[in-house]
């Protein structure tokens, strides 16, 4: 039997791990817990690698499908089945690889936490769900994973449930995600009722078979494809924290740092991108929605970047940077550069995970302190952390030849290449964002590692480099942050040097993003333009770094103060994240609660029950008045008799 046949084990193992850790073991079995908690994802990683090798070597580009069992039959026939094709292959690798190393890291980071076992149970559960999401061969299995990771996100954000805020943040995350899922579901319903299947392959075939049908007007003045695409995209904005649903991600930092690294940077939040690329056929058929995607992506990117500039909590900075980077990915998807989107997804997974873990190691050293204003000059005490963090920062800033550069540049190129003035604007936005990214990321670096220590004494004494089990993953991921980009070196580069195109990723993913009708990504661009674009992005990145260096390297906090002094309005605006949370609270949450109370107190209690009670009272009253006709005086009774007789007689002769 071949490695691919064990595909089902890849998600099954983490689930099993979660079950064992969560239900069977006790806290005292710590070594066993560790063995299972890390072993399960480790084993899946091995299996995944084997399966991938098998796939790439033997099957590519045909998808490999593994049927497990029928979920439902009859007119709604849905199987529980897995699918390995280039797209899921990439995701599979990213998820298992990054996931495994984060698990390793957690052994150290959560080592002293009383909820160690629970933590690993949740993490494994998450791995399982995420793999389900990635491997599912139809929308339903995908949705199951989709909600599953949402659940784990809820549980892990609220991991410190004894404090007040984390559970709340978890709830917020879950609910906001649900709002997205609501649209996702509608999309699924539409596809099913129109095409009678949820299987990715069949869907693509049937849609392509009759493009006219997909483009006929459906709902909300959109075409069928357009409506579905919109639904899916709204779903994606929830999961991937795009405008307008990004508000949950920053709060999600209430969870342990490895969680932020795994779920809220590397894997789960990128599910939206994965989904959009997965269903790219629809988007290719609905240019208007694609445009929307691009605009939302770009807007999110820049908004988040600006906010990130004014945050003092190191994890908040990373959170907003994540939002911003996700924006990039959607920009890419929106302009039809699906490969670029996945490319950036992969590279981002490495360097952002590395950054988060780095920040984790800092926080670890600082004894739980997350405020950069209390840090500074840590590079001496935390050399390994510092170096890896620095490398990843370079990567995210987009400095060649690190991973971030290639992916980001490809996105910008794709945007630039897309016909239409709007896309030029988007390109500029993307470029600016690149600069801002470089700027705020290096601000973080400088505030954390440069300058002199601003924390308390005991913190100063407590400072130490993290143990091996934590630094090794940092190194591994940092390496990834360096090399990951090389699988996608643009065609132009190769050709300029006379080599033939070795853009592996493109060739690999080509079958998945087969174009419906030429909305070409980086086509029709001379190499010169390509080089110029690269130069531009590098330049702006360097500029950003320069500014950051000039501002924060030495002056540290004064720079912030000065900035605040200069433009107080902007400062407040950014510090308060444009008051988005407050606005939502005023516009949505409170009115809803008021409505609910109204329904309860007024409709239920007052109108319905009140009406009934009045009715009952009236009935009682009638009886109570009527009974007084029985006066106890027999003469009255005789009178009634006589009256009755007379009336009846009168009525009869009438």
């Amino acid at each position, binding site marked *: 039997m071949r490695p691919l046949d064990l595909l089902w084990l890849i998600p099954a193992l983490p689930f099993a791990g979660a079950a064992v850790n969560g239900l069977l073991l006790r806290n005292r079995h710590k070594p066993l817990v560790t063995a299972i908690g890390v072993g399960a994802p480790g084993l899946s990683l091995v299996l995944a690698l084997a399966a991938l090798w098998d796939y790439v070597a033997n099957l590519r580009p045909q998808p490999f499908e593994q049927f497990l069992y029928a979920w439902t039959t009859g007119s709604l026939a849905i199987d529980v089945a897995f699918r390995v094709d280039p797209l899921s292959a990439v995701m599979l690798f990213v998820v298992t690889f990054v996931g495994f190393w984060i698990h390793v890291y957690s052994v150290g980071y959560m080592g002293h936490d009383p909820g160690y076992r629970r933590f690993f149970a949740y993490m494994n559960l998450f791995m399982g769900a995420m793999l389900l999401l990635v491997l599912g061969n139809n929308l339903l299995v995908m949705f199951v994973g989709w909600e599953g990771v949402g659940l784990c996100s809820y549980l892990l954000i609220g991991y410190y449930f004894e404090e007040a805020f984390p559970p709340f943040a978890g709830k917020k995350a879950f609910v906001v995600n649900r709002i997205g899922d609501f649209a996702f579901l509608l999309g699924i319903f539409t596809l099913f009722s129109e095409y009678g299947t949820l299987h990715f392959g069949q869907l693509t075939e049937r849609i392509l078979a009759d493009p006219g049908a997909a483009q006929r007007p459906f709902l909300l003045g959109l075409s069928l494809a357009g409506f579905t695409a919109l639904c899916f995209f709204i779903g994606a904005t929830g999961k991937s924290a795009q405008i307008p649903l990004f508000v949950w991600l920053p709060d999600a930092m209430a969870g342990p740092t490895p969680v932020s690294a795994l779920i809220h940077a590397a894997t789960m939040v990128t599910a939206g991108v994965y989904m959009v690329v997965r269903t790219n056929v629809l988007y290719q058929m609905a240019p208007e929605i694609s445009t929307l995607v691009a605009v939302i992506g770009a807007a999110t990117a820049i908004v988040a970047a600006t906010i990130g500039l004014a945050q003092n909590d190191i994890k908040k900075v990373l959170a907003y940077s994540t939002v911003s980077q996700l924006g990039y990915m959607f920009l890419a998807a929106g302009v039809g550069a699906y490969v670029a989107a996945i490319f950036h997804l992969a590279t981002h997974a490495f360097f952002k995970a590395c950054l988060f873990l780095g920040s984790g190691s800092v926080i670890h050293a600082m004894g739980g302190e997350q405020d950069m204003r209390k840090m500074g000059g840590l590079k001496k005490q935390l050399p390994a952390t510092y170096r890896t963090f620095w490398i990843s920062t370079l990567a995210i800033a987009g400095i060649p030849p690190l991973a971030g550069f290639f992916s980001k540049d490809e996105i910008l190129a794709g945007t630039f290449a897309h016909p239409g003035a709007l896309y030029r604007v988007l390109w500029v936005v993307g470029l600016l964002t690149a600069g801002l990214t470089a700027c705020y990321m290096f601000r973080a670096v400088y505030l954390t590692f440069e300058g002199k220590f601003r924390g308390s004494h005991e913190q100063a004494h407590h400072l130490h480099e993290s143990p091996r089990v934590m630094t090794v993953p940092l190194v591994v991921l940092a390496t990834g942050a360096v090399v990951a980009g090389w699988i996608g070196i643009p065609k132009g580069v190769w050709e300029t040097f006379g080599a033939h195109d070795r853009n592996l990723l493109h060739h690999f993913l080509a079958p998945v993003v087969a174009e419906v009708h030429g909305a070409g990504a980086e086509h029709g661009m001379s190499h010169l333009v390509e080089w110029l674009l690269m130069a531009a992005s590098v330049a702006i990145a360097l500029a950003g770094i320069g500014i950051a260096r000039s501002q924060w390297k030495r002056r540290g906090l004064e720079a912030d103060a000065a900035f605040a002094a200069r433009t107080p309005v902007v400062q407040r605006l950014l510090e308060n994240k444009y008051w988005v949370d407050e606005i939502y609270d005023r516009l949505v949450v409170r009115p809803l609660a008021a409505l*609910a109370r109204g329904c309860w107190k007024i409709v239920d209690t007052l109108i319905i029950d009140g009406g009934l009670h009045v009715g009952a009272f009236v009935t009682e009253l009638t009886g109570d008045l009527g009974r007084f006709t029985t006066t106890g005086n027999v003469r009255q009774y005789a009178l009634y008799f006589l009256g009755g007789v007379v009336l009846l007689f009168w009525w009869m002769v009438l």
Partner: protein
Amino acid sequence: MGGSFLSLLLGDTVTRLVFFPTLAAVPLLFMGKAKPIAVKLYALAVSLVEIGLMLAWTAAHWDAAGLVVKDPVLPWLEMPSLSIVYEVGIDGISLPLVLLTGLLLPVVVLGSWKGVDRHWTGFTTALLLLTTGILGALVALDLLVFYVFWEVMLIPMYLIIGIWGGERRIYAAVKFFLFTMAGSLLMLIGILWLGWTYGRLTGLWSFRYQDLLRLDLPVEQQLWLFGAFALAFAIKVPMFPFHTWLPDAHVEAPTGGSVILAGILLKLGTYGFLRFALPLFPHAADRLAPWLLGLAVIGIVYGALVAWVQPDMKKLVAYSSIAHLGFVMLGILACDLIAWQGALIQMVNHGLSTGALFLLVGMLYDRRHTKKFEDFGGIAKVVPWFAFFLVFSTLASVGLPALNGFVGEFLILVGAWRAGLHLLVAISTFGVVLAAIYLLHLLQKTIWGPLTREENRGLRDLDVREVLALLPLCVFMLWIGVAPKTFLEPSRPALEAVLADYRARLAQPAPAAPGLGASRNPAEAGRSFLVDLDAPDRGVQP
């Protein structure tokens, strides 16, 4: 009738399933002085035997093509030109609910172990009689017999709420009784009218489901009759705006009562729609569906919203039932096969997850004698297993994929969307979001966050009995969620048949005067109780 009835009672029949609880209640009359523990164990034993009988019966009559099993028909009330027959049977539509009833019986006994602190003989008797009533209503194939069982349920439930209930138990009990009675009396008139019409056409009155299905009535008559039936069922479901009895009943009822009430009693309303109201009056149903759909969707959103702002756990769960059953109604009224499958499975799901939630609230109540949120918060630390089960059941109720709730809601919504109810489905789907809001609110207020109350520090975690009560429910929640096929298949043929029949009758316009429709194609209709296959035609000529 006596002798043959006795033989039915002893044979491997539906009748035995229905009346075994009653028989088992007889010894209790002489156990008045017995120790509570003895009575409890007896009740547990009886409930286990009952579920055993059910499983045995199902296994015996199982058949891949669904199952339609009918006991021999007995006369119940024969008069010249009028006959009511005792006719019971189980098909794919009633089977899941029958089994659910069986499953909940032992759960209820275990769940009431501590909560019910007095008159256990009485409690057990009421419970068993109630079970007979429920099962009878589920399997009855003569509308008058159905009505009888339907009413038989009232008194025991009234007693359970009123005797073992909370502060305002009497108010709640009477309210429950009057609401249900108000609806069902109108339904009685409707039933009588149907039988009479049939009698006018054939010369022989009959209340048999299969006879009355042959009636083709003018639209306006259908509208009145459907109204009468729909009111009775809508109150039972309950649909907005007939729901206000439910929160009171649940809040006051003892745990076991709530479990039965939410678990099965409410389902009889939806079952009634599926079994009687729609098939009997297709045109009226079609005409009124928009309004009922509106009410159903209002119920979904309304129930969710109101649940969100409740200060009392049990009330929250009660209102959540209104929302959940709104989904079921949506599915039923969508008149789409998938939606119907979803509705049926959702009836079961709601029984499981809401039942579990009521049990959990009850367990908390047994410990602290309060159900108010303000008295809890942050107890997950103290009672981890309780927290686990609460989270599990809540998630099932939220409709998290891979748990049962999702299956039902998904099928219902897909089906309804396929049937073209885009706006309604959109609103209902938004109800799913609201579900997340209020149910996570429940978790937030009870188990998460800092431990606010000192007295909660000493809370006991679940003991074996409580876990045993919860476990079966949770197992099925997971099972249904992961592999719904197993639970959907048995009902599909019956649902297909009923739906096909419904559509066929809708296809031809309603006549101007009452008439007898053409008898159905047995092959098609044989998969439910649509035509009389085995019983002899009792001399009915138009």
